């Protein structure tokens, strides 16, 4: 929204065009995704590794740093709208790499939003600095019916400290001295706590999942992890986890649109090249209509994401819009990726082509929560 300021009209009018600034950012990120991410996607998925150099190059784009407060070296350009546009483009390149590149925000944004002056002074300059510093946010719990609003991980007072106990999963764990945020229940409400990666009692087990294989994620066992009183975000009121969840859903939904778009484009191009019965298979209605439906649903889902992002930038309660957009993207991305595999037929089932990876990644939206933030 701030990014719009320059060109926005005095009175609101319904519109669907990114500002010139936003268009420029999108263009830059898309080029980066095409040149740096897409070519690495398969290799990183198979090897379950991300080249450090890539993260550093991505960091130079300042996608996270630009959104941090200027007082701490950031660009002060925080905009959920712009964030959503960026997230889609990066994920169009590759979801695992996109989540890795945006991971600093997982720590930096909540600290910027709810951190104390001291916490901001300690952490934000690092995230706004020259080197890539990974972030991590532990919201998801490895159990049936995991609920970010009602974590089973508990935080109890013990003297001046907080003692955290419970389990988390799907926590990004990129190399580097990044700070970790953990959600825990403190008399009824979910709150966020800063935890050092090397904290005593913190058990860290690498995970393997159906998708996002390139992104290193871990399961955390918090066995009475003790943190200082100041480690709790948000002062008296505590951090507003609902807003973190909403921002997570908008960011993730935006990546989901990118994944779906990537799968759609591959299917579309394959269908035009691949011949059967003497004509491109794209000339068959069964294929053509499937592609048309994908295109319609992807465009529609994107607009839902944009509206939720716009709501966030308006400062209103965006949880409903964010949740509806996220649920829609979850459906649309899965269908688009499954449809892409189908269009490619036998080839779609092989790892020679990307759609099978998109399908595995897309299914992840049934498990993800706050794996990215705007």
């Amino acid at each position, binding site marked *: 929204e701030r990014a*719009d300021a320059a*060109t*926005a*009209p005095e*009175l*609101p*009018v*319904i*519109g*669907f*065009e*990114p*500002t010139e600034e*936003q268009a420029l950012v999108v263009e830059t990120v898309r080029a980066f995704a095409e040149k740096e991410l897409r070519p690495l996607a398969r290799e990183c998925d198979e090897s379950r590794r991300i080249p450090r150099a890539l993260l550093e190059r991505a960091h130079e784009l300042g996608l996270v740093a630009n959104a941090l407060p200027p007082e701490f070296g950031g660009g002060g350009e925080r905009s959920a*709208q712009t964030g959503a546009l960026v997230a889609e483009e990066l994920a169009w390149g590759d979801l695992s790499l996109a989540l890795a590149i945006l991971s600093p925000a997982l720590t930096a944004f909540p600290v910027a939003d709810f951190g104390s002056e001291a916490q901001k002074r300690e952490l934000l300059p690092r995230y706004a600095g020259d080197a890539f510093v990974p972030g991590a946010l532990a919201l998801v719990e490895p159990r*049936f*019916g*995991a*609920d*970010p*609003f009602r974590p089973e991980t508990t935080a109890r007072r013990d003297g001046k400290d907080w003692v955290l106990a419970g389990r988390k999963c799907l926590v990004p764990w990129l190399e580097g001295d990044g700070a970790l945020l953990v959600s825990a229940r403190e008399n009824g409400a979910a709150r966020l706590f800063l935890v050092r990666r090397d904290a005593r009692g913190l058990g860290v087990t690498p995970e393997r999942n159906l998708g996002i294989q390139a992104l290193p994620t871990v399961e955390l066992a918090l066995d009475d992890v003790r943190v200082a009183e100041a480690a709790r975000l948000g002062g008296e009121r505590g951090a507003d986890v*609902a807003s973190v*969840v909403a921002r997570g859903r908008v960011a993730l939904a935006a990546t989901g649109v990118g994944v779906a778009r990537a799968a759609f484009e591959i299917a*579309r191009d394959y*269908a*035009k090249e691949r011949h059967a019965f003497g004509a491109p298979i*794209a*000339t068959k*209605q069964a294929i*053509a*209509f499937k*592609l*048309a*439906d994908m*295109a*319609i*649903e992807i*465009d*529609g*889902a994107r*607009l*839902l994401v*944009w*509206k939720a992002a*716009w*709501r966030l930038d*308006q400062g209103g309660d965006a*949880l*409903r819009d964010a*949740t*509806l*957009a996220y*649920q*829609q993207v979850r*459906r649309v991305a899965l269908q688009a990726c499954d449809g892409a595999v189908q269009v490619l037929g036998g080839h779609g089932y092989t790892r020679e082509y990307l759609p099978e990876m998109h399908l595995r990644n897309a299914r992840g939206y*049934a498990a993800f929560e706050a794996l990215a933030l705007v």
Partner: protein
Amino acid sequence: MPICFEPSENASLARDHYHRIAVEQMRPISRKYDDEEHALPQEWVDFYWQHGRQGAGGRLDGPGDGFVQVCMQAEELCWGDAALYLRMPTPALGGSAVMAAGTPEQRKRFLSRFREDGPPIWGAMAITEPGAGSDAAAIETTATLDGDEWVLNGTKIFCTAGEGASQREGGFVVVWATVDKSAGRAGIKSFVVPAGTPGMSLVGLEKKLGIRASDTATLRFEGCRIPKENLLGSAEVKKRDPKPGGDKGFKGAMATFDASRPIVAAMAVGVGRAALDFVKEELERQGIRLRYDAPPTSLTAIERDVMEMEAELETARLLTWRAAAMMNVGKPNNLEASMAKAKAGLAVTLITQKAVELLGPLGYSKKLLVEKWMRDAKINDIYEGTQQINQLIVARRILDYSSSLLR
């Protein structure tokens, strides 16, 4: 315009204005005119003619939302009653055709009267033929130039508002006909036939599943003579399909749809919203609230259904607004208009069917209007380009295929 989902003050005023009309003027007579199929809703026609035409007021100097605002109006009034909306005395699609393919003089000659006093009048567009279906190029109605007159011969079906437009003094029907069958699409032109022109006769009205208050007519043209100047666009037949914006014949006529589809999509959204709003009100009465913060595993089936209905309806609305907003800035929206129409038609068909389901015996009963909205909604999957036609248009655009390569 930058990304923004808050309408202008004028658009908000207009929306409230038309919502009031929907609540006060349309809903009370909705069931009556569904039962009395084809009967003219006199009180509604008179109300619209006297008060509906002058618009919603608001600050004339302030910016509006243009075509998006028109879509909002359509949504509100169809939330009231889609059939009554289609029965309003307006130039309707006939007007869109004249605007898209007509000369300034023609626009003045045929449309100005809709802003004047006198009895209510209607406009309509006649395309579909018994044999042709959605295949506009297969039109068999002929137009032959005889001196200073075009002579039309043929039969048109599924002509919305066809009774009013063909029978009520002052109205007109825009008829698609071929001046040269051998030229295919290029030979197809549109002609304005004033109401009551000898040779144009009303064969009958369709009995339909829904939108029963709307007069869907079959019109016959036998040696129907109209002045030469009633041809929209040029009489010249370019054998090779001209570029968009070139010839105002077939392409011009087709362009009508790029302009009308967002409005038709908005109408669909209105019907779907009527059903969704009712379901949500019923849930409130039942003390059921939608928990957007609940994990999927703890949602009830109804909560998830309604949330999905909300997302689907909002998707249709935003695709519609986008297609309309593109017109505001003069961007071609052929793809986006068909996306909106295809999505809206399907979404509201499913939403209204789901609404009846969720309400069980209540939804199935004619005591409520929900069953009517399900019947009314289905037309959006069919008219102004069926679901399949719009998928076809979208497919051609995204694949960059011609209509000959993909059909």
